[in-house]
Every structure is written in C-alpha cells, then in structure tokens.
C-alpha cells in the first residue's frame, strides 16, 4: 500500500469521474434503486460485472507497460475492452474517463508508457498505466479499478437521492471485503462478466436529454 494507490482511488483526483454515475441515474429512473438497501444491491451487481472486468484490464495494462512492445500489448487490451463493452454508451463513458485520467496521470507520473496508450483509451487501461508509472503493482491496479467501480456510483446515488452521506459511506465500506475479493480474483485474468441490465440502463440513459450525469 502506498500513497500513490490512495491518490488513484481518491475521488478528488480530477480525472472526470464525478460526471459519471455508472448507471445509477438511470437505475433510479427505472425504479430499481431507491434506498440504501437497493443501492447496496446495485453496487454489488456493478462490482461483480463491470468492476471485475475493469480490475482484470487494469492489472493487465499495468503489466503491459513492461511488455517488449507496450503499444501492441495495450492496443490488444483496448480491443479486449471493446469486446467486453458492446454498449456504445458504456464505451464512450469508459473512454471519456480514460482520457481524463491520462490528462492528470501523465502530469503526475511522467513516463514514456503514457505515449504507448491508444488515443482515448478505456479507463481501466489508463488506470493500469497510472498504477505502473506510480510505482504500483498489477494487483494494486485491480484494487483501484474494483473500488472505483462502486465509489463513484455510490456518490452519485447520494447526490441524486439526497441520501444521508454517512449511510452511503457505510454501504460502500461494508462492500470492502467483496471489492478485495473481486480485485484479487480478477488480477491474473481477464474476466468478461457482463450485466445486460446495465447495458440497457446505459443506452436508455444516453438517449435522454434531461440527465445530470454523463453516464
């Protein structure tokens, strides 16, 4: 554990994550998220699917920095990320956040590996490179990705539903063992777990013109 990992997982890192709700805004509109209990269910669902996928990709991207050909290795991972994210809305959200993280990460931890990323990389790839350039391990990258898959959406739910911040913090903190479990299970693998409900919510959300969040 180093301060670099805390920096990466800190919601105050200006990488643009605060403009994304990770499906929470549409889940509220669809009536599947309304209170702390249903928030916990939604976060667990997200963690086990897009969180696991992000953790696997982030760990692999962290490893790819040391590859003989990091451009090819990261390009192949970007294709794997696309294959696991057929939803155009979710792809756009991931690439927007990836670009935001490249902007801050490349200034914070200057390194040639940033130039090996594709333009507008998927967020987990940028996260993996940030971890590597910050001196962290692939496992650290997986933990940051798994944690970020629920921390941003939890904050979005708090804001949209005017929920008690202490309750939301408790819901998130109680998921910590599951976050660790998902990160550890995904760090050596490239999971492909998907939730068709999240795909549907993301596409319904993208078609709205009265939304507060970008995704």
């Amino acid at each position, binding site marked *: 554990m180093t301060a670099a990992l805390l920096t990466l997982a800190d919601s105050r890192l200006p990488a643009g994550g605060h403009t994304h709700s990770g499906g929470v805004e549409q889940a509220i509109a669809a009536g599947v998220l309304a209170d702390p209990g249903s928030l916990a269910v939604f976060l667990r669902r997200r963690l*086990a699917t897009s969180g696991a996928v992000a953790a696997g990709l982030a760990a692999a991207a962290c490893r790819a920095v040391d590859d003989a050909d990091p451009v090819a290795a990261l390009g192949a991972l970007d294709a794997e990320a696309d294959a696991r994210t057929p939803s155009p809305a979710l792809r756009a959200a991931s690439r927007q956040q990836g670009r935001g993280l490249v902007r801050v990460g490349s200034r914070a931890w200057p390194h040639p590996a940033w130039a090996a990323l594709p333009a507008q990389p998927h967020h987990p790839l940028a996260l993996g490179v940030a971890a590597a350039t910050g001196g962290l391990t692939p496992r650290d990258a997986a933990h940051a990705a798994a944690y970020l898959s629920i921390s941003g959406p939890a904050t979005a739910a708090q804001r949209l539903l005017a929920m008690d911040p202490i309750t939301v913090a408790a819901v998130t903190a109680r998921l910590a063992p599951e976050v660790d479990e998902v990160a550890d299970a995904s760090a050596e693998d490239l999971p492909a777990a998907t939730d068709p409900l999240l795909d549907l919510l993301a596409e319904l959300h993208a078609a709205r013109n009265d939304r507060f969040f970008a995704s």
Partner: protein
Amino acid sequence: MEVVARCDARGRTTLPIVRASGQLAVRRTGAASVHLVATAFGPLGGDDVEIRLVVEAGARLSVHSVAAAVVLPARGESPPSWQLVRAEVAGVLQLAPEPTVVTARADHRAELHAQLADGGELTATEQVLLGRVGEEPGRWTGTTRVERDGRPLVHTTVGLGPGAPAWLPPVAPRAYVSTVSTGGGQREVATGVDAVRLPLPGGWVGTAWGDELHDAVTRLASVSPRPVDELAEVTR
C-alpha cells in the same frame, strides 16, 4: 461431436463429417442442416460436452436440436455440467438449439468460441429457462467469444441464478434469450422493455429477459432487426 460443412465444386454444401459420441447424437436433417439429439437424460452435473463446428468458405450450416435440454443435478454435491462449442466459420453458420432448462440445484456452463474468417457469418441464439414449472431456479453461466481474424468482436459472460453476482432482485429473471449475429451488417442500438440490441463490428447482439421464456423471446424479437424466420431462410 463434430460437423464439417464444405462447399462442393458446384457451390452446394456437403457435410463430409457428421459424427458424435456420448450423450449427444447428431442427425442430418437437410443438405446443410443437422439436429442434435440427446441420447440420455440430462445433461447431468459433471457432464462435459465439446462440439466442434467447421464451416468452410462458401458452405452453410444450420445446427438445431430436437428438444429442450433439461439440465439435472448429479446426486449429492453436484458439479457443474459443461458444454463448449468451438466454431471455425469461413461460410455461414446458424446455431439455433432449443431452450436449455436448468433445474433446481443444477449448474450449467455454456461456452461458445467462434473464430470467423474474412467473409464468415455467424448467428447464434441461446434460450435459457431457470427451473421447471413451480421449481427453484438452477444456475447458468454463458460465455460468448467471437473473433474475426484473431481480433475479438465480442466477449461476454452472463451469470444467472441464485448466487450469481449480477442476478439480484428486483431484476432476477427466470428466462433469458440472446442472439449474436456477425457478418450480416452492423445494426445500431435498439432498446425495448427488458430488451436491448447493441452493435458489433459487422453485426449486433440482442439480449432480453423476463419471467417466462415466451415473454423474453417476444422482447428479443422486438429489438431484432429481422424476424427469426428470415434468418432460417438465409441458411436453407
């Protein structure tokens, strides 16, 4: 189990290899179509089936089954049952088996790994029902990976049933259907009630769910670009 479809000198499909052993038999039911027939009750927990399908350039193959597959648990602590379909497609492949019914305590894993050559077309439909009437749902995990020229087009794993992490109330459907179609032209996003269609390079993937299989099938049709009958026509 293995089926090879080849295009002869006159441009017609022949099936030089059609063979199976174990729990599955395979019958030729047309010039370019086969039906899978279960030779025993099941699949049972612990069963492991591999199906290899090769569709060479210019050939067509349509794979069906004669009846729903009813997945049953083995006695005691039942291990999962596995079905792996490996497809190499340079021609046109349609995979349209009857539904898979996963009974209480059963845990079924279905994988489709398809490698498409340039010009290869694949349409694969999957229908899953968790539990028979009045019965607790079983577990089903389906993985689909399609590559074209070694590049992944889609790779997703869907887990359904009690204990599956993304199968949680209020959205924990008993019925799930999905179609992946590539090579027939890219289709943009479409959404419906408990149904969504997403674009793939040169194709689309549609998914729908509900409490009953017929509801899910109707919902998938509502976001599918062509009626299923027309798809059958293509491979005839």
